[in-house]
């Protein structure tokens, strides 16, 4: 066992862990951050996606000990003072969730995409979220949600291709 200290959504958390623990288990089981979902356990579905030091990673493929001294952000960390982020509101408005199991990962990933690239083309959206799967098939609603946030952000510019193909 060793002690690790990880800043999760701005709050420093210390826990004793074993070297073979996954970051996914550390977040879900030790810290009870339950928006981080465990599904495939092998880096395919992307539902355990979190931000580690500002980069999206699949937490089932990261050791908890690797996060020692680093910063983790989950979907809980993107709302501002209790007000939902624009992409969260857009997900609600467009019904971009059916069962909702994958939604935290999609919200986090599209939030990050729009932060780094406010006007993504459809190809860029597909590429950036290529590691995520939605089994209910809400991809078109997610497209619409991203397109709405993209269109509302300044400077106003038409996306290169129409995002909302539906």
């Amino acid at each position, binding site marked *: 066992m060793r002690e690790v200290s990880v800043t999760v959504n701005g709050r420093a958390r210390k826990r004793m862990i*074993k*070297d*073979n*623990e*996954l970051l996914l288990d550390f977040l879900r089981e030790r810290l009870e951050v339950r928006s981080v979902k*465990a599904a495939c*356990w*092998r*880096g*395919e579905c*992307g539902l355990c*996606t979190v931000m580690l030091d500002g*980069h*999206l*990673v*699949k937490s*089932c*493929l*990261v*050791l908890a*000990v*690797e996060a020692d001294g680093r910063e983790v952000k989950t979907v809980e960390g993107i709302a501002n003072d209790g007000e939902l982020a624009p992409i969260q509101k857009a997900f609600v408005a467009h019904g971009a969730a059916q069962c909702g199991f994958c939604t935290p990962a999609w919200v986090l990933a599209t939030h990050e995409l729009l932060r780094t690239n406010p006007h993504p083309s459809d190809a860029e959206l597909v*590429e*950036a979220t*290529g*590691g995520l799967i939605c089994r209910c098939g809400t991809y078109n609603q997610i497209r619409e949600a991203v397109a709405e946030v993209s269109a509302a952000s300044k400077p106003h510019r038409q996306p290169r291709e129409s995002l909302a193909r539906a």
Partner: protein
Amino acid sequence: MSFGSPYTTLPDFEYHKPTSLEEVLGLLKQYGDEAKLMGGGVGLIAFMKERLMSPGHVIDVKEVKELKILENSPGNGLSIGAAVTLSELLEGGVLKKDYTVLHEALAKVADPMIRLRATLVGNLCEAIPWVDSPPALIALDATVSIAGPDGSRSVPVSAFIRGPVDIDLGPSEMVTAVKVPHAKGSQSAFEKFTGGSEFSLASVAVSMSPGGRNKRARVVYGSVNSTPVRSAEVEEAIKDGITPGSIRKAAELASEKVECVDDVLASAAYRRHLIKVITTKVLRRMMSQ
């Protein structure tokens, strides 16, 4: 590899995070067979979950400064340290111009989140028959730099991969870098067919040196056999230039001569068909460039 295994935990191990190459070699000497090196961990963590590997010691080399080196110069070519990630390689733009075949092979590996952590050396060392980097590296005449208790040595990638999941590396040795000779003015491209799955069912890597006396072509097929397959017949067919005629001939020869295997992913006959298609596709693209 048994997919859909119930394993969601990792075997017990001790985690080490050295910061220098000397430290890594010391740990390898101490633990030998008991230790596994971890770059991005993408492969190792998956293997450990499947209990295909249960190392007592995991040595994380991400912070080893000597392994973070990524250099490109006309004299020495491209040197890719063992801890350089696929994202770093792709985003640096270093591959796009002179090492196109490698750029095209890596740009389609998994997804951006995986590429952020996975390393080229890790990808290569897994020596899984359907990974895309080995054929591209062999087409570029790349070599593997190895460090160990008895000093350093260098092996061509084609010889380094001995068989499926079998590489020329001793228990106390490690791959420090992959070196690719400078390929200025050469033309290269990569094509694969995945059938919509995550695995290549067939891939082809082509590299052509600029014309003149030392003209040479390399054509390497991946995912069709247990190790990448070079085809001298196809190379001969396109050596003097890529034309509609030589493309037709190359595609026929490829389908006829390249040895393909039957496995759970595809039959040999289907692979021979795919080889014809991707050979035509890749060469047509090169012809029009």
